């Protein structure tokens, strides 16, 4: 929980488009609109915004516990699940 994460800046294009937060992975120097494109819902976007390469994951979870409804345990599980998924897809990196 002391790990610090940040978007893989050089390897993704992330933009809010028509009210949806879209992530396009860049693979071998190509952003492929014909391949897998990902989207984050509102809470996912809130996590993304906090993964700034400075905050520890524990701090991110604490802040989200204040901002969102739900038990601390639920939020912790959701955040760690999302972070694992983003790491697996190389959309974020550990600093």
């Amino acid at each position: 929980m002391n790990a610090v994460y940040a978007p893989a800046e050089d390897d993704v294009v992330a933009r809010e488009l028509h009210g949806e937060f879209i992530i396009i992975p860049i693979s071998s120097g190509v952003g492929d609109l014909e391949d897998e494109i990902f989207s984050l819902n509102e809470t996912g976007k809130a996590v993304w915004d906090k993964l700034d390469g400075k905050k520890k994951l524990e701090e991110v979870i604490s802040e989200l516990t204040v901002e969102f409804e739900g038990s601390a345990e639920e939020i912790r599980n959701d955040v760690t699940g999302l972070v694992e998924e983003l790491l697996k897809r190389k959309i974020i990196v550990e600093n």
Partner: protein
Amino acid sequence: MKIEKAENEAGFSNEELVVIISAAAAKGASTRMKALGCSMSPFIMGGDIITLSPLPEVPPEKGKVAAFTCSKRKRLTVHRIVKKKGNGYLIKGDNCGGSDRLVPERDILGIVSKIERDGRIIRFGLGRERYIIAFLSGIKLLPSVFMLWRVLPFKLRRTIKCLIHT
């Protein structure tokens, strides 16, 4: 709180594509996307997959196919550079009558570096023959050449293509 595969069946809007291509280019990345319309037919057909390489990695030159946007409308267009004129480029669709306009270099988002059709890479139209295509397009003779090309026997067309690419 989850990551999902984005449903993009309707495709991105023209404005959204401009945002995505510009963002990818700012990172030095190319964008692979589906071409729409028939203004570049027969070299690029609707449904072909094109790869746009960013400037200055691939510089805009006569005969190359450029993706550009109009500063005011932010509308994405993919047409061929017919000639350089001052600080801009005269750009025209291979299958269009008039020129688009004089496009300043800052409005060019990328250059088509690859065309894929039904899983095959299409090279004809991006090689050295692009100079001839741009010249014919500039003097408005391209439609007549297309008509002539279509009536040539298949073997002769294939031989011409091979000669150009050797």
